[in-house]
């Protein structure tokens, strides 16, 4: 995988602190943030907004064949999470027993290293999620 330093740097607010956007015209929250609201287009008004830290699992899988950077973690859980403002994101579920991972389970954001460093030594950090119930 290639993750150039400037890309990581541009994504600090999004990946470290869950900053996205909300359209003030229709009220929809977007993560990651978008420049244009797909519902309202130019009638929309996008403002930056911090996403809630909690949500629930909408769907999940357990990856047994991981790409480079993730091999040491296999098998790992990957889930689509709906945050409490209805924005959705894809993230790993960590610190859990397999039987705890179910559709509807409540989860909370954790700050983690995402993968093993690439060849240039760049370490990518970001969000993973833990089960709270």
């Amino acid at each position, binding site marked *: 995988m290639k993750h150039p330093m400037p890309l990581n740097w541009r994504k600090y607010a999004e990946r470290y602190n869950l900053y996205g956007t909300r359209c003030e015209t229709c009220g929809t929250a977007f993560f990651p943030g978008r420049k244009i609201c797909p519902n309202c287009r130019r009638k929309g008004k996008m403002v930056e907004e911090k996403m809630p830290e909690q949500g629930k699992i909408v*769907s999940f899988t357990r990856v047994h*064949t*991981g*790409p480079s950077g993730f091999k040491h973690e296999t098998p790992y859980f*990957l889930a689509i999470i709906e945050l409490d403002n209805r924005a959705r994101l*894809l*993230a*790993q579920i960590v610190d859990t027993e397999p039987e705890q991972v179910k559709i509807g389970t409540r989860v909370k954001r954790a700050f983690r290293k995402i993968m093993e460093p690439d060849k240039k030594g760049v370490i990518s950090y970001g969000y993973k999620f833990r089960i709270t119930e």
Partner: protein
Amino acid sequence: MEKTKIVVGEKMTKVVVVGTGITKFGELWEKSFRDLITEAGIRAIEDSGLSGKDIEAIYGGCMASGRFIGQEHIGALIADQLGLNPIPSTRCEAACASGGVALRQGFLAIKSGAYDCVAVGGVEKMTEVSTEEAGFALGGAGDQEIELFHGATFPSLYALLARAHMNEFGTTEEQMAMVAVKNHANAMHNPNAQFHREITVEQVMNSGYVAEPIKLLDCSPITDGAAAVILCSGKKARELGLKGVEIAASEQASDALALTDRKSLTELNSTKVASSKAYKKAGVRPKDIDVAEVHDCFTINEIISIEDLGFFKKGEGGKAVEEGKTSLTGSIPINTSGGLKAAGHPVGATGIKQAIEIVEQIEGKCNGRQVKNAKLGLAHNVGGSGATAVVSIFRRWGK
């Protein structure tokens, strides 16, 4: 202000597939990218009875030649290798739907009146790199920044769709396995298929998880291959006395790259939109279709897609497979070629291979996998996890 009147019916240009050419699909160590495109291209031209000088333009589907063989600028390469310079040659890329998109561009080019005869091809040479590098190249069909970055693989994205479908409708892993079993059985009758080996539900169930609930034998393979078709306007085909199959409609739709931006995880909206438009343009209904090639990159996608294409009600796809409704002798035979699963999936070539299978079914050339009296067929090609879908409908061409 006067509105432009759209002319429909007999006066509208018809698009006819007058020739088809395909290579063997598989791990073709002895064949290069260039060998594949020339083999498929020459076969298509010879099958049509035309000569290279009749071809006015080329559209070529190819997903990731840059990652697979370090070669871009595929459009010009195809024209050059086929000895067709200086006609315009354009590469079309839409991940695994690259071939379907190229077919539609060729279809539109003739519909528009710009050309009377074009060649459309698709190609992928995937075995020059390791399985891991191939996985990374294919991952480019998803969203790099918010899916692949977090450890998503291509099978894992379809696994998320599979889990949602199982949760909502009770679809089972055995029903998914039955898709693979059926498609391997069909491929036994397709000489160009990658696999000529029947498999059992038990073998699929024991093949090991790649991304739960998707197992190794739920996945389409890594494949080398190319396919090409020659398209002519109805007028030109009549003048030259050519035989062929008409493309009655070819429609395309887009959706969010990332699954997290989709409205539903149990359907592909792009398939629903493209197919409903295609049925309308062709003036037919889903139940009129005699045979269909459906994008089974993973077995769950055949189940989701036969629902989204309107062959079965939402949630009843798994049951339909289990009841044999999609087998060769069922009410709507699906993937007679063996599908992506067993015929192989050279990504850029798949959309063209699907079209060729439907054309040959309508021409009655499919021998052991022939659907009796197939008059109307459909090809469904998906890019990524559903961000692009192309649906084309084919029918017998009456001169």
